[in-house]
């Protein structure tokens, strides 16, 4: 069944990993899913040695996570795989919502011009994983397939892992352990750690269908369609003529029965019409929970992605928030491992990503309650919102078929330096940076591509910076934690030794409320740490110290 053939990655006997006493590695990642792989790639970019252990020997079976949101693409850009992902993925902006036979309204995901990446692309998870594996290997990550971690013992300054392979089991130690072993997380269970939340009593059927359909690349969502009464249906296009169709089945459906092709095919025919040829690539039945671990950090063991938190699939907040976990964690872990920040910096990983997980859980729970109302009253409200949505803009805004993944504004983060000056706009301390089209050395470029993997500082100017300013920027480059200076100017300027970002159309000035002298301190994960109306290197250094718990 299907067109995609899973690659088999070669098993390597762990002769070099077995030792008595056990080897000690600086960093081990458990799980080569999208999030564990992103963490491994980022570790290499931060200059860390990393060993990845995975119990399987291939990428995901079935398309699984298929929507990658703009913030994920920006993270993947920093990791070096966004270009192939966007080249293969399907871009879409238009979403249509139907009630019974009628289209209620449509939305356009990208009203906001001036961003390098689209609001969302659709791409099968196995493709993303293949790209991340290639990138991790290219950067020198050590990935071991068919290495199943069966036990973890936590110690004050390391963890000991027992690893099972086709050549028997062995112990190995890690100074730091990143657990990315998915929603069922055997390691989380093994360590007896809590994960709490809400189970939803509903079942959904996912069918990946290969067909040469002339439907446009749009997201179509039906409430109560004639071909599947009283339930919801979602249609999405993936790459290579694969379509994702998602049927709500209700709690009473028998998952084994519903998975059978003789049961699935009539459902698809009712939807697609009898004569359209198609082939089934993958079928899965799922239920879901909205829950998270109480604490993402347990000493030297750090949990990321689905292992730490789970959401309903509505809104694509699973893999997307997992990438943000890795993005938040790895620069902090690098500073701690390299002795440039205290361990408590990692507590801010836990606090900030727990805050983000709560927001994701809240939004995906709200979508779920709208899509699958739990009472007659709730259903009446839902259907009347849809009725009003045909006529009134306010009701369209209430229609909730998934609030598509957007990053959290980490306004509560302990790493932020609160504003002392007054600013307009959304780029508050803790905000994920807005992108902008710019020119660098006479070429078209994007703001986010200029900031790199470390701390950076944007200085807005309207002419060549003064000697005093240049001296301050130089001192920031030479501090214990170097800050890369970037000059933002309305036109090309010659500033020897410094990168000048030309904001000819004023996108950055507008989005960041930048005026001559305005200074932004940016974290390695492209979040705003602090901002001022004047450059003052001492204040910037204090903010860097604060953003690293120093």
């Amino acid at each position, binding site marked *: 069944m299907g067109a995609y053939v899973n690659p088999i990655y070669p098993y390597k006997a762990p002769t070099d990993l077995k030792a008595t006493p056990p080897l000690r590695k600086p960093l081990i990642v458990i799980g080569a899913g999208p999030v564990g792989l992103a963490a491994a790639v980022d570790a290499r970019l931060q200059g860390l040695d990393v060993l990845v252990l995975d119990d399987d020997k291939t990428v995901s079976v079935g398309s699984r996570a298929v929507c990658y949101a703009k913030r994920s693409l920006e993270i993947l850009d920093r990791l070096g795989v966004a270009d192939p992902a966007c080249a293969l993925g399907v871009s879409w902006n238009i979403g249509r919502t139907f009630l019974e036979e009628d289209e209620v309204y449509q939305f356009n995901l990208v009203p906001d011009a001036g961003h390098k990446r689209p609001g969302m692309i659709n791409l099968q998870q196995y493709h993303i994983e293949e790209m991340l594996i290639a990138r991790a290997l290219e950067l020198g990550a050590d990935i071991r397939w068919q290495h199943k971690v069966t036990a973890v013992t936590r110690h004050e300054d390391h963890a000991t892992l027992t690893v099972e392979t086709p050549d028997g089991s062995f112990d190995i130690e890690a100074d730091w352990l990143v657990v990315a072993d998915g929603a069922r997380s055997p390691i989380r269970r093994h360590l007896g750690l809590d994960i709490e939340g809400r189970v939803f009593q509903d079942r959904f059927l996912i069918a990946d269908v290969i067909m040469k359909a002339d439907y446009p690349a749009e997201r179509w969502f039906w409430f109560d369609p004639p071909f599947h009464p009283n339930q919801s249906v979602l249609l999405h296009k993936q790459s290579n003529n694969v379509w994702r169709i998602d049927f709500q089945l209700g709690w009473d459906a028998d998952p084994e029965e519903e998975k059978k092709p003789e049961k699935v095919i009539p459902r698809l025919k009712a939807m697609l019409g009898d004569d359209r040829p198609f082939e089934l690539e993958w079928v899965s039945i799922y239920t879901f929970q909205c829950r998270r671990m109480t604490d993402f950090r347990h000493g030297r063991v750090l949990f990321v992605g689905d292992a730490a938190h789970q959401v309903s699939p509505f809104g694509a907040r699973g893999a997307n928030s997992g990438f943000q976990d890795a993005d938040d964690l790895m620069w902090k872990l690098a500073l701690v491992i390299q002795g440039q920040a205290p361990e408590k910096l990692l507590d801010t990983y836990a606090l900030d990503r727990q805050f983000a997980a709560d927001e994701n859980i809240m939004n995906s729970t709200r979508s779920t309650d709208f899509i699958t109302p739990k009472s007659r*009253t*709730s259903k009446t*409200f839902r259907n009347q919102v849809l009725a*009003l949505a045909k006529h009134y*803009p306010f009701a369209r*805004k209430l229609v*909730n078929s998934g609030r598509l993944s*957007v990053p959290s504004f980490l306004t509560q983060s302990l790493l932020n330096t609160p504003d002392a000056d007054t600013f307009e706009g959304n780029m508050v301390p803790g905000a994920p940076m807005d992108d902008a089209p710019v020119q660098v050395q006479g070429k078209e470029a994007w703001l986010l591509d200029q900031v790199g993997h470390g701390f950076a500082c944007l200085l807005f100017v309207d002419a060549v910076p003064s000697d005093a300013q240049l001296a301050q920027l130089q001192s920031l480059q030479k501090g214990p934690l170097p800050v890369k200076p970037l000059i933002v100017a309305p036109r090309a300027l010659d500033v020897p030794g410094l990168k000048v970002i030309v904001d000819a159309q004023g996108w950055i000035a507008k989005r960041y409320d930048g005026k001559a002298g305005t200074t932004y301190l940016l974290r390695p994960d492209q979040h705003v740490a602090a901002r001022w109306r004047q450059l003052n290197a001492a204040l910037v250094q204090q903010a860097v110290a604060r953003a690293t718990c120093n």
Partner: protein
Amino acid sequence: MQTTLLKTDPNFHEPGRRFFRDFSPGDDFYEALIEAHNGLTDEQSEALNARLILVLANHIGDLRVLREALQAARAAA
């Protein structure tokens, strides 16, 4: 449908609070609305809805707005 006084553009907000996403204030209200019905029988929910309409109508007060609202709700069925 044309209305003159009745607001039909998104209008949920909370003074003093900043929303970074435009869907958030409406979703906050909708969640509170559904939550208010939690644990009620259908009959109790119907009664709650009636009381809610009366409370809100008194708050709005302006009969011109209320007539337009009644008209808009009836016509959208």
